[in-house]
Every structure is written in structure tokens, then in C-alpha cells.
């Protein structure tokens, strides 16, 4: 169980020293890095390159648990029939990994992700792990990952994480450690799981004083006040499937892949063979060829049908299958949409559209 001493105060340099310690132990450290005035979660070799003043990274954290492109099988090497095993052991040459013929994946610590991304992994665990067929690739990466989340001090106007029950800019759901920047050089760190405790092994740091805890409360209140967007999904969404408003709302959509790729919880993928490897990679359901059968028929051909399917999968089908929305309110689909479609706006219009019978 987690030791009694859960919360403590730490300065920025000590935090950097701990992160540098992680890299020294040959554990992969992934942290936000600034590239062409956008922030990405990338592997970092020295703690100095970590960016601290960012609202959120462009690509969600699912990118490191369910990578955008992942080699599933490697059947090359010219043996006939193909010597069918997983990708060769990446770290240590040729021998196979005895535990369930899975390629060994390096331990990784993801620092600086936001609470909404940490919660998105809880949502993604259900389809990948808690079903008859368990996705072993996702499972191994998930177990070997430690999440150190950074609470949001000023959420953007596109964020709506507080519309979800264990959501909110300071929510600790899904992360192993939660850091809150209470002062210019002062972080309040809260350990939430054994994995988190392994990182901050012997914390000889000061306990948070009452005054710091009070500062934490009003920081939390200010942050929650800044969230101006809310999600209101109409209850009878299934009856509104035929509403004409879907057609008019989907007119300005250009059916690109941004809202699907950058959504923290979308998980559709394709499996193809490229050269001598079978790999899977992300694919959005907005492309016309997404449902193209070999007979040439496309089941969701019209752009409005594909536009509508994304809403129904997130707010109706997934809720029926897994009991929660396939969304964590990170707001990336609103922020990065090239034509600024706001799904909360669309759901609102659909909700009060009189459903023409």
C-alpha cells in the first residue's frame, strides 16, 4: 500500500534532478518539448529540454501506449516458410522474449501530461483490456508506463474536462503522481500509486503546510472557474439519428482526420503488411475508404453519415457497450479543427432540433 506520507513540497530543480535520475536508470522519460511553437510529448534525454509553460500537447498521451504506428509481427528474414515471431527483441539482439512471445518494451515514465489525458487511458483500458480478446501490445506498454500528471492552472476556452464525473483540471484519476505548481519554484506533489512511489523513492521533502494547502484550494477553484464549455448530450440521441440537422451541421466539415487522430480516446486502427512486417496504424472513420468492402461498396459513403458516426460512437454506442462516453473533454477536436466545428455546439443544436418524423 502507499506509505502514509503522500503529499510533499518540492522545488523545480529537485523535480528536474529526479527526472534526470529516471533517465540515468535507463528508463525512457517522455516529457513535453516545444517544436515550431507547438508542444509534443517526446522522449527527452536531459531534463533541461522539458517545456513548462504549455496549455496542452498536440498529440494525446495515447500516442505512447497505443502508438500511431506499431509493428505487430516481423516475418521477414527470407526464411520460407516465414519464421513467425514477434519483432526481434529490440533491446538485446535476436533471442525471443520467453514471457508470452512479446517483444520487450522499455519501461517509460511520462511526465507533464494533463489530467484529462491521464483519464483518457482509463477510458481506453476498457476496449483494449477488459474484453474477451486482450490486446497484449497495449497491455504491456500500459503496465510499463508511469504517469506523472501536471494539473492545469489555466485551462483553455476549448477545454471541457469538468463536464465528466471524475474530470476537472486538478483530477487525479488515472495518474500515478499529480504535481501542482503552487508557486514560482514550488510544486506540490501527490503520490497516488505504487508506481508513483517508485519514482519518488525516499522523499525527504517538506510536508505541505496549511497555507500551501489553502493556496491549492483556491488555485483549484480559479482553474475550474476558467472552464467555460460544458457537454450536454441529448438523452434520446438514438431517436435523433434521422434529424435533418446532421446534414446541415456536416456541411462545413471537410472529412479530414484531425478530430479523430487528436482525440484522446479514439482508437480505430488499420492492419497492413509493409515489406516484411505486419503493422497497425491509426485510421480515422472520416475517410471514405474506412468502410470500403472488397465488393467496392462503402457502407457510410456520404460525408454526413461519417460525420454523424463519430458522434454516435462517442456518445451513444460506446456508452451502451462500456457504460461511459468515449470522450474526456480535452477539447483538442475543437481547438485543431480547420473549420472550427465545435461538437458541444453541434450536440446542442441536435438536441433541440425538432425531430422531423
Amino acid at each position, binding site marked *: 500500500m502507499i506509505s502514509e506520507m503522500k503529499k510533499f513540497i518540492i522545488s523545480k530543480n529537485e523535480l528536474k534532478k529526479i527526472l534526470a535520475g529516471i533517465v540515468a536508470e535507463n528508463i525512457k522519460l517522455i516529457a513535453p518539448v516545444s517544436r515550431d511553437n507547438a508542444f509534443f510529448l517526446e522522449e527527452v534525454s536531459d531534463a533541461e529540454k522539458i517545456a513548462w509553460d504549455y496549455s496542452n500537447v498536440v498529440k494525446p498521451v495515447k500516442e505512447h501506449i497505443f502508438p500511431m504506428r506499431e509493428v505487430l509481427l516481423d516475418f521477414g528474414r527470407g526464411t*520460407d516458410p516465414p519464421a513467425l515471431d514477434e519483432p526481434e527483441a529490440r533491446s538485446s539482439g535476436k533471442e525471443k522474449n520467453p514471457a508470452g512471445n512479446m517483444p520487450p518494451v522499455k519501461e517509460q515514465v511520462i511526465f507533464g501530461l494533463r489530467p484529462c489525458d491521464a483519464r483518457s487511458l482509463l477510458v481506453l483500458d476498457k476496449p483494449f483490456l477488459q474484453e474477451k480478446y486482450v490486446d*497484449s501490445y497495449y497491455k504491456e506498454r500500459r503496465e510499463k508506463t508511469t504517469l506523472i500528471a501536471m494539473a492545469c492552472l489555466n485551462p483553455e476556452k476549448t477545454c471541457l474536462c469538468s463536464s465528466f464525473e471524475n474530470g476537472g483540471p486538478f483530477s487525479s484519476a488515472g495518474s500515478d503522481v499529480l504535481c501542482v505548481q503552487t508557486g514560482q519554484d514550488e510544486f506540490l506533489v501527490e503520490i497516488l500509486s505504487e508506481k508513483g512511489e517508485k519514482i519518488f523513492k525516499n522523499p525527504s521533502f517538506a510536508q505541505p503546510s496549511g497555507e500551501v494547502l489553502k493556496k491549492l484550494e483556491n488555485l483549484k477553484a480559479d482553474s475550474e472557474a476558467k472552464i467555460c464549455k460544458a457537454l450536454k448530450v441529448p438523452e434520446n440521441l438514438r431517436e435523433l439519428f434521422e434529424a435533418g440537422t446532421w446534414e446541415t451541421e456536416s456541411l462545413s466539415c471537410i472529412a479530414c482526420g484531425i478530430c479523430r487522430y487528436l482525440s484522446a480516446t479514439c482508437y480505430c486502427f488499420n*492492419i497492413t*503488411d509493409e515489406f*516484411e512486417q505486419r503493422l*497497425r496504424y491509426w485510421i480515422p472513420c472520416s475517410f471514405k475508404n474506412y*468502410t470500403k468492402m*472488397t465488393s467496392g461498396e462503402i457502407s457510410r459513403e456520404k460525408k454526413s453519415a461519417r460525420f454523424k458516426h463519430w458522434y454516435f460512437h462517442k456518445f451513444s*454506442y460506446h456508452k451502451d457497450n462500456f457504460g461511459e462516453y468515449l470522450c474526456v473533454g480535452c477539447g483538442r477536436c475543437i481547438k485543431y479543427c480547420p473549420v472550427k466545428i465545435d461538437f458541444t455546439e453541434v450536440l446542442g443544436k441536435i438536441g433541440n432540433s425538432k425531430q422531423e418524423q
Partner: protein
Amino acid sequence: MQNIYLPELAKIEKITEETPDIKTFDISFADAGAREKFTYLPGQFIMMSVFGFGEAPFGLASTPDRKGYFQCSIKKMGKVTSEIHRLDAGNIVGIRGPYGNGFPVKEIEGQRLLFIAGGIGLAPLRSLIYYCFERRKKFPDITILYGARTVKDLVYKPELKKWQEDKSIKTVLTVDPGGEDKNWTGKIGLVPKILAEMNPFAENTAVVLCGPPIMIKFTFIELLRMGFREKQVITTLERTMQCGVGKCGHCSIDKYYVCKDGPVFNYEQIKTFLEEI
């Protein structure tokens, strides 16, 4: 931990040409352990992969009682299937499965059976037909209605001839108008039209459908007009599949995944689907 994307190696034993673009492959697993472990229900499907070209779902056409090898009938359509058609006996393919829920053999026991197939749709039905032949006591009355575009598109011609001679089964073959040739004795017309002419007895009869979506849609209309109960009308749905295990999202229709919750659905479920099949 079992890797759900890792196929078993299997060898192609025999290839029989059914029509210019449809071949039936007899496949058996390379290692004996997998051969025993591989049991399936009629109506299930496997994911067959040609290494370097990709993977595709194919219905199992052979009856589960025949041990040792199984059969798949594959039509040459896209990248993977045309590569499969280039293989010959002795080549190695990868097999994953069996996936899907298969036909509800328990519910249809003791009822009259009406099989309606279109084109390559006869393959999964053939698995169920032979399954019923082996248990004739439970399935006394069997009627088969099979239609194809032209005479040379009819699959399993020798078996069709055998079924026609067998008096205990009623077999009706049809080809689309214009697809017949000189010595064609069967009916001419689309499957729904021929079904209307046959006017089968609706009471205590289970209907099993398999074919292109357009045929399924119009056959539904005919069946409901003739008074078949919705629960009795059973069909398989066709969707593009990438993973076969309900993860990749490609085969989603309404809130169901055709590979996990299907491919066999009865009309009662299909009626509630928001998207048409």
C-alpha cells in the same frame, strides 16, 4: 500472454476451381497441436493472411465434423484475394480464428429449414447444410434456394447436382435473367422473385440467408410479407474487417461489431439497427 494478432501457420492441401474467379482451398494446420485445438461452429470465419500482402476474413465452408482440414471458398476481388489465387498447393498461409458467433444451431433444431444463398454466400451456408445432413433427425425438412449471376458463377456444382438428386431435400437453383445458357434447367430470375413463386410454408420454419446486402434487403421484404416471424429470419452481414476481434472499429454497424457480435444476426436485431445493412 496470448497474442491475438499472431496467426498459426497452415498449409494449403488442395485447391479446386469452382468458377473462373472463385476457388475452394483445403487448408490444414502445420503443427498437430493447433489442428486439434481448432474447433468451430458453422457460420464462423477465420482471418487468413498471405505474408507480405495482408489479411482478410473468409467464412468457413466445410462442416466442423470433418477433422484434419477445413475449407474456404475465396473470390478474387482485391489485393489479398488475388494474391491467394496466385498460391498453389503446398504454400503456407497464416490462419487466425475462428471468430464470430456462428449460426444458432440450438434454436433452429427441430424446425423446417430454408437456406437462401446468393453467389459466394453459399460457402458459409454449405457448412451449416452439411452440419444438418450429419444430424438429419434434428433437421428433417430442408429446402435450399441458391441463386447466382450466371450459370458459370454457381459454386459447388457437383454437390448442387447431388442435392438435386437427393429426394429428401428440395433444391431450387436460379440465375439472374440473362445469365442462363442453352441447357439450363433451373429457374431464371432474382432470388426474392423465385422465393415469392415458391411461397414456402412459414409456420415453424427457420430461414438462413447469406449473400450480397442488396439481395438480403429484398429477401427480408418477401419473407416478412409471407409471414415469417422476425426471430426466425437469420442472416450474416458483410463488413470490411481488419482485426476480427472487435478492436479496430471497421466492422461497426450501430453499436455492434460484426466480427464480435456477428456476423450472424436475426431480423429482430437488424430491425433495431439505425444504419441500414
